[in-house]
């Protein structure tokens, strides 16, 4: 038999009518099974969620791969910070600064406390004495300044007084 004849016989092949009818019904019935609107909404939501989640995960792995986040450093049993001398140094320096501030403050507080006691009253009174105010009996500082020259007196008289010094003079 020639091949051309064989092909021409193929043209005459037909499906079994019963099978043909059955498959047609199946195809048509499947088309009628449309999804309810609610379920379609859920599907859309889940797809969006899936896509978003996949993008986030991909971003995370990209960061991990490019070294933007090095998990090893943090997951290691001996944490990196413990042996990080620069971090330690920075923290120790911050403490040093606070200690210096505390010392500074301490000296100021003690000097303020001392100022309220008698020994430094002469220092408060000296410029007032130079200006002819205050009691002559308070200290020898007054005598010393009163005997000093006019230049020293004019310098002392132009030196601004503190609130306490001014009040001290005005209370007498």
């Amino acid at each position, binding site marked *: 038999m020639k091949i051309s004849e064989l092909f021409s016989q193929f043209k005459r092949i037909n499906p079994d009518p019963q099978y043909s009818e059955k498959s047609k019904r199946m195809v048509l019935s499947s088309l009628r099974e449309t999804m309810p609107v609610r379920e379609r909404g859920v599907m859309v939501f889940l797809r969006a969620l899936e896509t978003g989640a996949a993008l986030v995960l991909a971003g995370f792995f990209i960061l991990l791969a490019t070294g933007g986040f090095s998990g090893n450093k943090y997951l290691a049993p001996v944490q990196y*910070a413990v042996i990080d001398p620069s971090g330690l140094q920075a923290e120790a320096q911050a403490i040093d600064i606070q200690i210096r501030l505390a010392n500074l403050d301490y000296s100021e507080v003690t000097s*303020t406390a001392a100022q309220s006691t008698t020994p430094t009253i002469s220092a408060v009174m000296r410029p007032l004495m130079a200006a002819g105010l205050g009691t002559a009996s308070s200290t020898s500082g007054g005598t010393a300044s009163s005997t000093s020259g006019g230049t020293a007196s004019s310098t002392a008289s132009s030196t601004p007084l503190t609130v306490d010094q001014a009040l001290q003079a005005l*209370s007498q």
Partner: protein
Amino acid sequence: MIRKKAFMVAGTVAGIVCAIFFASGARPAHAQTVPTANAQTSAASSTDCGITPASLAQINVIENDPTLTPSQEVVQELAMRKQLIIQAITCAQSDIRSLQSLLSAVPTSTDAERSIKSQLQGRIDDASNFYLLELGKLGGAGIAGTKTIAGDVLAWREGTYVPLEGQVGDFILWAGNQQLFATAQERMTETQQAVSFIESASNNADLQSVFNAAYASFETAKNGNSAAEAGLQQSLPPDQTLVLIKQSLDALQETYQQFFKVSGIIQNLLPQ
């Protein structure tokens, strides 16, 4: 089909949650959170207000002016004294405003800090009111009255305002230390974990001993810090509280010396 899809999505989301968990758990435990130390500006109990001995000498000049009648002399001297007292009190009020703004700028994060700050703010308000009352008394005062007012204000400043100023300074300093203590606590926890891990692998007497020293000095530092907090709450004299603050800082500094030693030992133990 939807269920299958939901399971897939849930799986993906769970994966991401795990990833985020690791990422957040792996935050830099020591993220260089060294605070900038608060610049402690001592409030100015000794601020000058433009009153000079020369301006005070004007009173003397009036007293000795032969051209003035006694009544003119009294009127002029009284006016001069009132003017100078107003000038001094106005200057003192300016100090109070500086103190208020310094205190307001202190950040607070705990109830104790907020309580101390609020207490100090209340006392600063009282101080401000005291000056207003004294200024009010000046109106009807004679020369002797102005002297009494000046003496009262001076005594009040010495007894009340100067300690308050010191306490505000102490609080500013102490508040600035709290971040240092928080950072040191984090470091202590990390160090403790690291030392435990190394000790579980092989016993190292030096490491344990240095860590114990760090731990002990940190406990001393924390106790000093708590004592300073109590001192501030009880309004102890400022120099007493300051001593406690200083002691806590000294102990904290000692803790860091031990941390340096721990770090050195661990670095030597780790494979290079």
